[in-house]
Structures are given as C-alpha cells and as structure tokens.
C-alpha cells in the first residue's frame, strides 16, 4: 500500500510513495524525508525545503495538520479504500438522507422544528448553548425532518446526531 488519495480543502491529491525517499504528488516527483520531533511534531523535508508540521489524529481517524500557520483536516485512504469510499458515498447520495450533527458540545435550548416539517437550507433548526452563548444552528440540507433525537434541556456531545433530514 504505497498509493494514497489524500482529501483536503475539498481537493483530492494522489500520493505515491516510491523507494529511496522519493514521493510522487499529483504526478510530480519530489524528495521527501520525515523526522519525528515528538508525538505530535514532525520535520518534513521536501527537496531542500523544510516544513515543521504538527499533527493530531481526529476522532474520526483522520489527521489534522498544522503547517506554516495553516491547519488542514485530511482524509487519507489507500487507492482501494478510496474506490470503496466513493461507492459508499454515491449510495448515500442516492438515499437523500442527511444527518444534522451537533457542531460542538452544548445544551439544547430550543428546538424550532417538529418531526415532519419541511426545511430549507439556512432555516434555523435549534438553539444550542455553549460557552454561555446562544448559537442558532441552521439547516445544511433541504427536505423533511424524519427524526429528532434530542429534547430541549438536554446536553449533546459534539457530532451527535440531532435530527435527520430526507429529501
């Protein structure tokens, strides 16, 4: 497994790791050499240019990378995994089902919609309190609310599914 598809910034990059410290990125060959500083920090040399990179593993198994002041979340798959993922994704797209997740941990203050309501993108769904601020969360999909998994006054974890919208 030396061929990877790396997704970041809505772009997909093809990376092949070749022998002798050579890496091919989107068809271009470069010298790449990695040194580890500690459990999070690395020094990556690309040809004659050094990059200090701080890495962390995200809850979903992806990597968060901080370099030159920029932060990227990357999804890395082998070529095979990528093909599978694309198939799965297409299936999901077909089902027209979209989970609306909590973007942060917080307290559900108010649920503004009911099961069965039709919603548009940008329509307020719930008010979540976090860090003493009320955050109005708006719909990221269009369709009908088929389930609501929370009630007012309960706390939710980050990424827990609040409700589901189907087209």
């Amino acid at each position, binding site marked *: 497994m*030396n061929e*990877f598809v790396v997704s970041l*910034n809505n772009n997909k990059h093809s990376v092949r790791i070749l022998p002798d410290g050579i890496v091919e990125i989107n068809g271009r060959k470069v010298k790449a050499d990695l040194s580890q500083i500690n459990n*999070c920090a690395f020094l990556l040399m690309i040809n004659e240019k050094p990059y*200090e990179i701080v890495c962390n593993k995200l809850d979903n198994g992806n990597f968060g990378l901080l370099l030159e*002041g920029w932060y990227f979340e990357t999804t890395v798959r082998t070529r095979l995994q990528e093909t599978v993922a694309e198939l799965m994704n297409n299936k999901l797209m077909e089902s027209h089902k979209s989970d609306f997740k909590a973007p942060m941990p917080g307290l559900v203050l108010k649920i503004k919609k009911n099961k069965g309501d039709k919603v548009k993108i940008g329509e307020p769904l719930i008010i979540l309190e976090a860090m*003493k601020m009320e955050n109005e969360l708006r719909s990221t999909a269009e369709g009908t609310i088929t389930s609501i998994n929370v009630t007012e006054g309960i706390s939710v974890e980050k990424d827990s599914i609040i409700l589901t919208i189907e087209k």
Partner: protein
Amino acid sequence: MFNKILIANRGEIAVRIIKACRELGISSVAIYSEVDKNSLHVRIADEVYLIGPSPANESYLSKEKIIKLAKEIGAEAIHPGYGFLSENSEFIKMVEESGIVFIGPSSKSVEMMGEKTSARRLMEQNSVPIVPGTIEPLNDYKEGIKIANEIGYPVMLKASAGGGGKGMRKVFNDSEFEESFNRAQNESLKAFGKSEVYIEKLILNPKHIEVQIFADKFGNYIHLFERECSVQRRHQKVIEEAPSIFVDDETRFKITKAAITAAKACNYYNAGTIEFLMDNNKNFYFLEMNTRLQVEHPVTEMITGVDLVKLQIRIAAGQKLDIEQSDLRINGHAIECRVYAEDVDNNFAPSTGRITHHRLTSGPGTRIDRGIDLMSEVPIYYDPLLSKVTTWGRNREEAIARMKRALIEYQISGVITNIPAFNWVLKQKTFLDGSFNINFLDNEFMPLVPGKWKEDSADEIEDVAAIMGALLKQKNISLTTSKNDIPETNQWLNQIYE
C-alpha cells in the same frame, strides 16, 4: 505593600498576575477548580487551593468560598483578573467589608458603571457623548419597537448588566424585534443574572476605540492612550492594537480627555477602560466603561512600557501614581491576537482537550501571555482563550510582519485553534490599510467560512500536507490523541476548600 495576594481567576490572566506578584516579591495564591488541577496558573503560583467543582458558579464565581479562603490563609488583597467576579459590585463590596483590599476600583464605581443605562445617564450629565438610545431599561418589547421607530432602525439591543458581547442583538425591523428581545434577555439572564436590556441606535460601520485610564486613591488621573479593537466576531474582540492608525492627534486629545472625564464622573481609581464607537467622521460615542483590567492590556504595556498589573497592585496598596501624563508617550506600535480553542470551520465550536504539544514563539518584539502549558486541560466550562500573541514594532508594518512570523512559529497540539484564521486576516487589504471597522470579519471573513478562506494558502502547502498525510498513514505513526497517552502517576490530594 502586600505580602500575599489571592488571584480569583484562571487561565492566562491568572498567570499574568502571578508573574506581576513574583516581580514585586509578593506571594501569589492560586485557586482552581477540579478540571484545572494541571493548569499553568496552578503550577507557577506560590500556594494553591482547590476551590470547588469545575462549573464556574461552583468555583471561580463562588464569592463566599473565595473570601473565606483569603481570610483564612492571610491574603491581604484579591486580584479578580477580568471576567468572573471582576465587575461584580456585590462581590467587591463583600471583599471591602471583609477587610481585604480589592485590586480594582471601589464597589461604588463599579456599580455606577456596571448598570449600562445608569452609566449612560451619568455620561450624558458629564457631557461625554453617548450613542443615541434609551437611558432606562426597556419594560417590554412593545416599548422597544416604539423607541426603535423613533431613533430609526437598525438598532442594538443590549444587556443593561452586560459587557463582552453577551446579550447583544442587532435588530433591523419591527418583525424581528420580539424574538431578538427575548433572546437578548435570555442571554443576559444567563450571563449576568439580570434580564434587563436597553436600546441603542446602531452606528453604521464604526470603529471600536477605547482609552486606558489609571487613577490612584488621591485623585490623580492619567490615560495611557487608545487601543483599536475593531476586529471582532459576534462583538468579541479578536485582534487589538495600539495606537489606532485612524486616530489623529486632535482626536486623541479629545477622546482621552472624554475618557478621563468619564472616569472622574464615577470617582474612579485603579485601571479602567472607556470604550467608544467612532464613526467615519471621527465622532465618538461612549459605549461602556470596563471597570477592570482588559484582555488586551498588553498592547498598551508595549507602547508605553508601563506594567499595568504591577501598577494596579501598587495603587491598590495605597501608593500614589508615580507616572505623570507628561512622562508618557506612544512608542511604536503593538498588535495582539487572541488565540482561542475553536474550530473556525466547524461553526467556531469550542475545541476541548489536553495540550499535548506547545511550542512558543520567541525573538524580537514578541510576547506571549498564556494560560496553557504541556498537559493542561482546555475544558468546556470556561472562556476558550488559550493565549495571546502580542508583537511590537517601530511602526504598524513591523508589528504586523512580526505577528505573521510569530504565528507561523507558534505550535499548539491537542486542541484546534484559530491561529490559521489570523494568517488570513493579516493578509487582507482592509486590515493592512486600516480601513476596517467592527463589521470587517462579518463582512469579509464569515462569507468564506467554512473552508473557502483557506484557499488563500499556497498550493505548495497543500501538496506538503497531502504528502504528510500519506506518510503518516503509510508508516502507521502513532500520534498522541487520547488523554491516556500521557502518564499520570497518582492523584492530587483532595484539597477542596470548604
């Protein structure tokens, strides 16, 4: 001078105050909540006491416990930092009555300025210009709609007890009014314990200009020039600088004079800040007075050379101001970036976790004030401010160049921060030419969230990130992710103070 000071706060400001104590040879006492046991402010204090469970109202907001502790351990003074109890006149009164010195203004001054509508009345009486609007809290939303129509939309609803952007709502027309009114009341109740809100005309595209003042207990007043804090998101300051490039000498003369008038009007002593909105024509309007140390005080320290926290302590101990107005001049330019644990692209959600890697920036003209260190927790319970990066330069361009350099050097792992977003801001024409106002981020940054603002980063950087991702996966390198990766030998003794 005091021998022992209790610091009723946490995070970077507690650390800042401990440093001031150490430089003055004063013993510092830290208090901490359960989740903060590994915090930096706990590690570096001279004495530490567990004050209660993690939620703030059981720990850092627990007036009685804090005062009782201070008395028992012989602390002669309490420094409140900012936030928490710093502007709570009831707490300050309790401290005063217990015979302990409060490092800040009198409870009376705080009361006069804390209730925003009465502060507006006071300013009006003293000919300090205020933003048009009510000088009494609104009785109900219907009254609000009436007044809004009188002064003209858009208007701002604000918490009478407010500050720091909480309990504030813009309203553009009658139909939005009721819900905004209710939301503002709710937030206000939660943040300050009082639901009263009042109404102000929305000044279009103003700059936020504030003046740092200082007074001793003998009636001597000085100002330490202005700060500009117009780079805000949801009324929360993100980048501050001193001086403001928008303020010319004449305007500076007028606004600092107004600030001192405002401070005198409430018989103020210790450090305080008068916040103003300034329109395109350099007209300014009193917004509120912050009767405490500001988050952004380092930029003033860097252009004046005055250590504001040490001066606070000296004034509180009854010393006279040893600086006269004529001793002060603006030296260069300073900029501060507030580093928050937040995920910009995920609706600015607070990011919590344990700091697993922390490399500070260093070198000329660079200062970091930080509440974090290796292995400290970033909990959900409190403000997500991790640290503040401040840079100084002979002029604004140099300060900005140093900030860009400093932010690239600064590494934090364990939580996601907003550092990358500063990279974006520091490159924008609107920021560089100084024409930004308080709507800058809302107008120019927010439409690029999530993700689009990152497209500014060079393709080269994206390629490097992609290669790094692939190498991490291929080599199956283990990264510190969970809290269990770091050894913990045994538990702290229970030192709950009750």
